């Protein structure tokens, strides 16, 4: 395998844009990424596009707006990890020597499709019984509280931190500081999770141009290297599994650390899948940032704040930046690349050199998760 680099990134603001077409939202992010990379659209050899509800041939519709056609284009669906899957395949295409310049796109327009909670599948056993996504994390929260004595305030603190970070991110959906009391007093969605501890469905797009070593030298860009790329489905739950552990996150991150030759202590910045407050708290443990059961202490001691041991979700995360499902993974890549380049202004993590993105997707009866993607980026 050869090295692959991120030469350019682009991202729309995340929010609700009912008046815009999905192709226009996508094209905005792609144009920014191409211009940021300094490549000509004609140089792009392959394009991968992650989305969950865009309908057929979204990639083609987006790129046709810009004037890119005739190349290999693949549309991919892996629930909320769709964008990360597109990024991984762009990486693989370059690392395997298939192409020098590859485009990864993540895009979603939900505002005209879903109001409130995403309906679970009726052909899935757990979905049929009303296992909506917030309920999954509420059940993790209950069990974490039972096993480790974690308090609802700890979950709220995660949401507090991420909202605080988003105030400094002009591309975030919600840019208002919330107090722990406001978060806890917002309406209960699934006990003990309240509204302000849930991500919000959003519209938006993000994109990345992934290039070979030869090309990054030619472009003269600061090389941000993709040091690890792992994607896996969740394993089957057999007998005494622990609901507070995301085994796919544990396994994918360990494989990624090994691939990159680093450990969790080397990370400066992380964008992780905080679809609900409790998710971030347990992922501190799953990613090996702290021992099992100590996620509450990790947030209480502010170790995941921008100026802490490792900045987790400096963008505001899914909780405040918004969650346009298929775009989320590439939105994470956008933030980490800009952090490694030192472009993040007030929310900049000092001297960030090593960053990680972590995206989860979907839920299937009997499986620990639908999909889990981990990428490590290094400058």
């Amino acid at each position, binding site marked *: 395998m050869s090295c692959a680099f991120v030469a350019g990134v682009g991202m729309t603001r995340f929010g609700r844009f009912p008046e815009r077409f999905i192709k226009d939202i996508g094209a905005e992010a792609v144009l920014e990424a191409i211009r940021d990379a300094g490549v000509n659209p004609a140089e792009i050899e392959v394009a991968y596009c992650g989305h969950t509800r865009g309908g057929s041939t979204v990639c083609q519709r987006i790129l046709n707006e810009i004037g890119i056609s005739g190349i290999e284009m693949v549309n991919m669906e892996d629930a909320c990890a769709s964008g990360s899957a597109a990024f991984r395949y762009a990486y693989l295409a370059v690392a395997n020597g298939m192409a020098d310049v590859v485009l990864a796109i993540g895009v979603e327009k939900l505002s005209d499709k879903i109001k409130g909670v995403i309906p679970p599948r009726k052909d899935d056993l757990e979905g049929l019984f009303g296992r909506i996504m917030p309920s999954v994390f509420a059940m993790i929260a209950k*069990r974490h509280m039972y096993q480790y004595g974690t308090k609802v305030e700890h979950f709220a603190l995660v949401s507090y931190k991420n909202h605080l970070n988003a105030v400094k991110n002009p591309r975030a959906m919600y840019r208002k500081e919330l107090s722990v009391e406001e978060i806890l007093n917002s309406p209960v969605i699934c006990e003990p999770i309240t509204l302000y501890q849930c991500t919000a469905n959003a519209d938006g797009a993000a994109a990345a141009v992934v290039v070979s070593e030869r090309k990054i030298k030619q472009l003269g860009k600061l090389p941000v290297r993709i040091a690890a790329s792992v994607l896996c489905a969740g394993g089957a739950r057999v007998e005494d599994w622990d609901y507070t552990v995301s085994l796919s996150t544990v396994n994918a991150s360990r494989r990624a650390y090994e691939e990159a030759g680093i450990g969790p202590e080397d990370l400066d910045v992380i964008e992780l899948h905080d679809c609900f407050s409790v998710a971030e708290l347990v992922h501190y443990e799953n990613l090996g940032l702290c021992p099992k059961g100590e996620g509450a202490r990790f947030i209480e001691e502010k170790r995941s704040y921008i100026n802490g041991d490792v900045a987790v979700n400096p963008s505001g995360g899914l909780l405040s930046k918004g969650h346009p499902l298929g775009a989320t993974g590439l939105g994470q890549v956008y933030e980490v690349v800009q952090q490694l380049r030192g472009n993040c202004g007030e929310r900049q993590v000092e001297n960030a050199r090593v960053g990680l993105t972590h995206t989860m997707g979907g839920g299937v009866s009997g499986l620990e998760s639908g999909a889990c993607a981990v990428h490590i980026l290094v400058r």
Partner: protein
Amino acid sequence: MKKYRPFMKGVIKVKDGGKVALIGGRCSRCGKRFFPRRVYCPACGAEKVNEFEIGGTGIVYTYTVCHVAPPDAEVPYAIGYVDFDGVRVFGKFVNWQERLDIGKEVELIPWKEGVTEEGDELISYRFEVK
């Protein structure tokens, strides 16, 4: 004559006297048990997976009460995982108000989920909190 039909294929058995049992899988090679049953063992890949019945009394592993729902469900409703002799099963609770907690005992009971066009009853299950 009214007939009983499982609400989902391969998940539940309706027994004499209207009782129900869930259909789990037990691997003939590694011995691991799981629900629902799969064709191959998800733990070791062995082809021979035997059927075994899950039912009776279980212990609540975790749960939540949902106050928002997809359009066709009534709120609030309680869902969670229950351990039946070491096998964890997801489902919906009945008789849960002010009684449900981790560690509580529940009974697996039959539940009429709906009626088919032919008038057959679709049989599902619930966890009744003791």
